[in-house]
């Protein structure tokens, strides 16, 4: 790598890490409004969302329906808290609106729905749907010679659903090289650890055997994520091999109080803990930047 390229890459890493930090703060602020919620998951995937919105996606913040935008599909509807934070960071929705999260008449419902929120491409929530819709969008874009790519966010729990594998087969069969899937491998489902609910490993081998360009990375390592997305994006073309990035993430990432708490799908956080969470997030980030 040349000196210039090294510096460009270092700038990208810094920009994404800064964006992820802001996303995490937004998530805590939104979580406090509800007093609970999918805060742990959202903190876990903040780096993934930041890589997507601060680095990879082509979009126009003031024109969410721009025809050539890269699509970002959130299949895991309850992760909406994370995506709202990312959309605010991206300038698609105003930061001030985040405090309406989950309130009556808000554009930011608890589970993400396309009809409510600018930038929300699909209504997720019934898990295992997102990748099937992504296949259709990728096919439709290609048929109309639209160069946009389809980024699709799914969770490891959604690998339980047969429809996800129908779509995995379909995407390969139809050679959807414009499709990039990220899987949040946080190893946790509603009833407990993913491996105790329904074993999905070896996940890498499963995707590879379905014909996908498969990578598995630390989903909280921004540099590693950027490399993985760059590799996937470099291969992206209208007709080719679809790409999947399995991202091992840590629930509550960035807030030791939550990282160490017994893992829960729906995390309860006491009133006096929110400020502690924010302080830990700020201190941890300052420490990591200075280190």
């Amino acid at each position: 790598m040349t000196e210039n390229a090294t510096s460009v890459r270092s700038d990208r890493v810094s920009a994404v890490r800064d964006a992820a930090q802001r996303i995490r703060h937004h998530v805590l602020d939104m979580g406090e409004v509800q007093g609970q919620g999918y805060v742990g998951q959202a903190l876990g995937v903040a780096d993934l969302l930041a890589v997507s919105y601060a680095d990879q996606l082509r979009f126009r913040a003031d024109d969410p329906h721009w025809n050539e935008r890269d699509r970002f599909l959130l299949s895991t509807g309850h992760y909406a808290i994370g995506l709202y934070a990312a959309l605010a960071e991206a300038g698609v929705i105003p930061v001030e609106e985040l405090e309406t999260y989950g309130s009556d008449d808000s554009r930011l419902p608890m589970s993400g729905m396309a009809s409510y929120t600018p930038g929300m491409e699909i209504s997720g929530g019934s898990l295992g749907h997102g990748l099937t819709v992504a296949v259709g969008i990728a096919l439709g874009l290609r048929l109309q010679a639209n160069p946009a790519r389809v980024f699709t966010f799914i969770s490891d729990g959604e690998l339980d659903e047969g429809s996800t594998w129908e779509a995995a087969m379909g995407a390969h069969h139809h050679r959807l090289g414009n499709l990039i899937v990220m899987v949040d491998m946080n190893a946790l489902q509603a009833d407990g650890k993913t491996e105790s609910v329904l074993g999905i490993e070896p996940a890498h081998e499963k995707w590879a055997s379905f014909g996908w360009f498969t990578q598995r990375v630390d989903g909280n390592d921004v540099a590693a994520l950027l490399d993985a997305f760059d590799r996937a994006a470099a291969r992206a073309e209208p007709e080719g091999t679809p790409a999947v990035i399995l991202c091992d993430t840590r629930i509550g990432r960035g807030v030791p109080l939550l990282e160490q708490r017994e893992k829960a799908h729906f995390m309860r956080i006491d009133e006096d803990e929110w400020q502690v969470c924010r302080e830990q997030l700020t201190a941890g980030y300052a420490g990591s930047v200075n280190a």
Partner: protein
Amino acid sequence: MTTVKDGAVRAPRLKTSAMIASFADPGQKTAPAPFGHALAALAETDPRIVGLSADLSKYTDMHVFAKAHPDRFFQMGMAEQLLFGTAAGMAETGLVPFASTYSVFAARRAYDFICLDIAEPNLNVNIVGGLPGLTTGYGPSHQATEDVAIFRGMPNLTIVDPCDSLDLEQAVPQLAAHDGPTYLRLLRGNVPTVLDEYDYEFELGKAKVVRPGNDAVFVSSGLMTMRALQAAEALAAHKVDVAVVHAPTLKPFDEETVLAELDTPRLGVTLENHTVVGGLFETVASALVRRGITRRVVPIGLPDAFLDAGALPTLHDRYGLSKAAIVDTVLGELR
């Protein structure tokens, strides 16, 4: 006549026909694959039209479209959840998909995908279901006897139950033009042509009085309108004058036209190729009650049961859908 081992003599038993068999009567005027030809013709002028199927293109007449427009046909494999999720995604990009499978698989297997990915965002996806009601002798795995009951509760979804080839040909462009999801109860293969004998045009959302009559009013949809017209002819020989109202759009339902016909002293009868639970009969009944109209209506339809396997003519007789069974039912009511 066949002699069997014990020496008894009985009529030869009809055999379950192959899946591709037509329910047309012998010698009846038919048109081949009217849906497939109509869709292929529409695609000539509308570049948004795409076709998809879940390993049943040959059995839903989608193969006609696929042959005419190979670049716009997408084989999704025997994967109905993917079929409808994909159709939703294509509609999100501005295309107008027609996605075909059997009605049983659309209604029972892919409901969640149709409901949340297509109906909730109100996308222009047209669901094409083959073998609606009792149009195959293969038994409950293939007989979609409750598809309308399943789909009627789905907001935004328009449900169409065409009678014949004419209905299908005229419906296809109107379904594509309709801004929202539709479910079409497909008749495929050599489909009878019936309504060309009457002053009739398909209009999405409208019921039409196809035949006037003074003694009884038939309200029917789907292939039962063909049977209703045949039964009406037969009943004329019994001095019973029957009106026939064809209501191919089951949802939203044309209450004005249908209730105006039923709110008379004539014998009211509904005829549907569907269980009497949750279909045309209950649609009519709830409309009557809501308007405080007290009229008895005789339901002709399939029983609330899993049906037998066998030959279609046998089964239509057994479950009361045949012309002869309709005539018997009506004469019994008037006696």
